């Protein structure tokens, strides 16, 4: 499974064929979460707490149950009891127990014959609340006297004496930063904050579930990982996992937010009660109020630098707020913070803090973008004050192969230096800046992930192949899978069809997350294709009456080699396929494993920004993404990941934020007030694909989906700070903040 040094010529990989699901998606034929129906189907709504924190005194369902068209009402009592660990957290989040823990926390659900009937009945459900004190700010939640979200939620990692809302702690590093600071010519220490932002996928969560009295069920849903949905639903409904078959629909964006389970067990519980299929589609406001935003953060970063640009020491404290449950990605924030740099003295601490907000969910490289914002801002300020070039300083301190990482291990082959060099050579970096504009640079890092993976490749009798993978296609991955299979088998791209298999068809597949799909399902596809090739060669060998070892596979044909070379004509895959029924039966290749070796990835972004000093509005005038892809299978979709991450980063840096009022209610639960970038907000986004092969993949692939969102917050903040002449330390840099900063700076 290691990088194949010999494989340096590709026929299919690196080209840009049309995606196999393209026609379905441009004609409206593709079926997403909300597009399924079933005979006798009911429509469901979820009733949610209007309070940030309240004891649920009583739920009276009688009037709602008697309402026109209502077939079932469920509350917490309709789910499994006695759960613990993360299953308990998920259940508590998707249906409140004794207390509502945030504005939008589910308390009951109704299924009726139409969605209007369900909505009408929702108004008749009576819930009595006793309102409790709440806290939504990360720093306030850690202070003495802050309301406790859940007593005893902290694990053993938290130092004694901290507030019970601090539930986990990460501490790592090496050397002694104080020694490093003593060697520095300049030390800067600053505080930075970022607000919670939502993944903002355009498709709300949606599912259609059937659960019969015999405990057997079918579920259709938009998810990044249907095996996980199967596992969680089975636990929360107390049924056997294999009795529930889950099919992943086309998915309308996820970015991490659809790795979590929010509605599927509710639809199944309603179905079990009503004995009819139930469709549940989240309204957009519910998506904002009750599905995972990313963590908000408060961070202190201190870095020392010599006049020549050498970083002598670095330390950081990263406080991440993850809502009313443990899980804010503070360890990733801490570990990613200084990853781009080779440091003798470094120390990072992370805290996971609970508040009365929705349970955070993964959002594209969870935790890393915020850390980069804090660290790369301080580095930019050091460069400015010491009069140093921002790329040269980063090159001087860059992590390389063999460098001891800030969190412990030594780096394998990595491509940070190559991205910096490519950025330096890019015309953008040396282009003159308009009067009043600013330029920002930032590096970013993400681990990438591999995970449990199973695929199957079945040969059809006409010589085309059917590839089944278990990782939902969130951005064109079926095209890459077809390409890798075609490459290995030596057949045309069009002869491979890739399907996302349901949970009854393949072994367990981990979620499409951690930028793992092209890496892990790709590696599995290559291995399954090689397994198939072995079987194909064996069939040819048997026919020719020679040793299977003496058969080679080239350009889609079995070819006699060694002593038998030239003895027989090449036997094409179509011929072997046609005869396979007579030569030993079906030919199927497969692969099941948890690969190791998802290579980490680094990026460098360059941004130009203009700030309107009258209104405080920022315009991004030019944007360049340089990122290491290891090997780009389908370059268009790699570019697409780069551009999409940059655009989300622009929104996060400039506009997007969860706004809470004093009452703890979310003020902007809609796309009008939670403003994601629109077409007229953005420039074209230039991309440079750097390819430093990942030693852990046959073609050198590294995940690309997440790293693209790591540098933007910092790069944009640096550009805006340089344009405005004041250091921006709080995100988002909305116009009012920029005006305040300009006023304070002048």
């Amino acid at each position, binding site marked *: 499974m290691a990088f194949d040094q010999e494989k340096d010529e590709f026929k299919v990989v690196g080209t840009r064929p049309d995606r196999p699901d393209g026609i379905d998606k441009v004609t409206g034929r593709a079926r997403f979460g909300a597009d399924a129906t079933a005979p006798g189907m009911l429509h469901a709504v979820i009733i949610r707490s209007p309070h940030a924190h309240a004891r649920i005194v009583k739920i009276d369902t009688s009037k709602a149950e008697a309402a026109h068209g209502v077939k079932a009402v469920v509350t917490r009592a309709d789910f499994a009891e006695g759960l613990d660990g993360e299953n308990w957290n998920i259940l508590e989040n998707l249906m409140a127990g004794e207390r509502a823990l945030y504005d939008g926390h589910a308390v009951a659900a109704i299924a009726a014959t139409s969605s209007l009937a369900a909505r009408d009945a929702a108004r008749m459900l009576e819930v009595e609340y006793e309102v409790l004190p709440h806290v939504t700010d990360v720093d306030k939640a850690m202070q003495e006297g802050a309301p406790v979200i859940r007593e005893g939620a902290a694990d053993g990692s938290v130092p004694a004496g901290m507030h019970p809302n601090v539930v986990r702690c990460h501490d790592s590093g090496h050397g002694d930063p104080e020694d490093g600071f003593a060697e520095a010519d300049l030390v800067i220490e600053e505080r930075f904050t970022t607000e919670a932002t939502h993944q903002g996928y*355009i498709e709300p969560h949606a599912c259609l579930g059937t659960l019969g009295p015999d405990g057997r069920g079918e579920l259709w849903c938009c998810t990044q990982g249907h095996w996980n949905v199967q596992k969680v639903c089975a636990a929360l409904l107390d049924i056997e996992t294999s009795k529930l078959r889950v099919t992943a629909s086309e998915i309308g*964006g996820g970015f991490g937010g659809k790795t979590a389970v929010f509605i599927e067990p509710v639809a199944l519980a309603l179905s079990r009660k009503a004995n009819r299929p139930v469709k549940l589609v989240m309204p957009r406001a519910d998506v904002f109020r009750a599905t995972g935003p990313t963590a908000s953060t408060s961070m202190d970063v201190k870095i020392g630098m010599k006049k020549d640009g050498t970083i002598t020491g670095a330390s950081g404290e990263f406080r991440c707020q993850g809502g009313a449950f443990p899980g804010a990605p503070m360890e990733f924030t801490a570990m990613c913070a200084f990853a781009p740099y080779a440091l003798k003295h470094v120390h990072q601490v992370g805290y996971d803090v609970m508040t009365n907000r929705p349970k955070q969910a993964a959002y594209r490289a969870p935790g890393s973008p915020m850390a980069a914002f804090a660290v790369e801002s301080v580095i930019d300020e050091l460069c400015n004050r010491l009069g140093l070039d921002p790329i040269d300083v980063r090159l001087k301190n860059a992590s390389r192969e063999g460098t001891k990482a800030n969190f412990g291990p030594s780096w394998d082959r990595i491509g940070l230096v190559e991205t910096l060099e490519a950025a330096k050579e890019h015309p953008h970096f040396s282009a003159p800046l308009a009067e009043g504009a600013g330029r920002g640079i930032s590096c970013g890092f993400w681990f990438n992930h591999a995970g449990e993976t199973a695929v199957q490749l079945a040969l059809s009798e006409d010589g085309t192949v059917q590839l089944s993978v278990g990782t939902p296609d969130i951005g064109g991955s079926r095209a890459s899978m077809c390409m890798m299979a075609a490459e290995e088998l030596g057949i045309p791209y069009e002869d491979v069809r890739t399907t996302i298999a349901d949970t009854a068809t393949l072994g367990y597949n981990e979620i499409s997350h951690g930028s793992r799909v092209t890496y892990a399902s790709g590696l599995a596809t290559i291995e399954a294709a090689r397994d198939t090739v072995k079987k194909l060669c064996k069939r040819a060998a048997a026919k020719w009456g020679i040793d299977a070892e003496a058969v080679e596979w080239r350009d889609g044909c079995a070819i006699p080699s060694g002593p038998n070379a030239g003895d027989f004509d090449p036997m094409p895959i179509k011929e072997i396929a046609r005869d396979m029924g007579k030569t030993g039966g079906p030919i199927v290749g497969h692969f099941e494993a948890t690969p190791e070796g998802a290579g980490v990835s680094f990026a460098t972004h360059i941004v130009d920004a203009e700030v309107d000093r009258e209104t405080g509005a920022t315009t991004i005038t030019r944007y360049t993404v340089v990122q290491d892809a290891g090997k780009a299978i389908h370059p268009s979709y790699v570019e697409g990941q780069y551009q999409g991450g940059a655009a989300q980063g622009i929104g996060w840096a400039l506009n997007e934020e969860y706004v809470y009022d004093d009452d703890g209610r979310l003020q902007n639960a809609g796309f009008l007030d939670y403003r994601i970038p629109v077409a007229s907000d953005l420039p074209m986004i230039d991309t440079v694909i750097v390819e430093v092969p990942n030693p852990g993949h046959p073609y050198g692939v590294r995940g690309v989906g997440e790293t693209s969102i790591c540098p933007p917050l910092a790069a944009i903040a640096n550009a805006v700070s340089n344009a405005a002449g004041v250091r921006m330390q709080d995100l988002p840099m909305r116009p009012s903040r920029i005006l305040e900063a300009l006023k304070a700076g002048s």
Partner: protein
Amino acid sequence: MIHVSTTVNGDAHEFLCDPRETLLDALRDRLELTGAKEGCGTGDCGACTVLLDGRPVCSCLVLAAEAKGREVGTVEGIADGEDLHPLQRKFIEHAALQCGICTPGILVAAKALLERNPDPNETEVRYWLAGNLCRCTGYDKIIRAVLDAAGEMREAT
């Protein structure tokens, strides 16, 4: 229930609907035309964009009853049988979609643009599509696909 007769993609349709029902719901649930998507239900995302007498509208903000006697155009009606519209071909060729949930609304809106302005510049395309959110692509490839399709359509006429 209200009785509605309307034309969708050139075909005559009749349905009964609740007075509160949106055109989007009627298209999706009653006519099984699920190409138009609901991203927000409040007119903010454009995923539900359809043409009403040739004008792009958010079908989540139009009542189903308002379709009476009018012509509705959805993404399902853009292609001419098996022949894709140049916009559809260019969207695939330029990889202008990742997840594809925004694509139906954007195609309908872009087609309306090119009917009004066959030679738009980048800024005009960006402002015309400003009501259609895409979270995946950063719009770069969408804008290029629209400009390329416009060029091809101009050459063909």
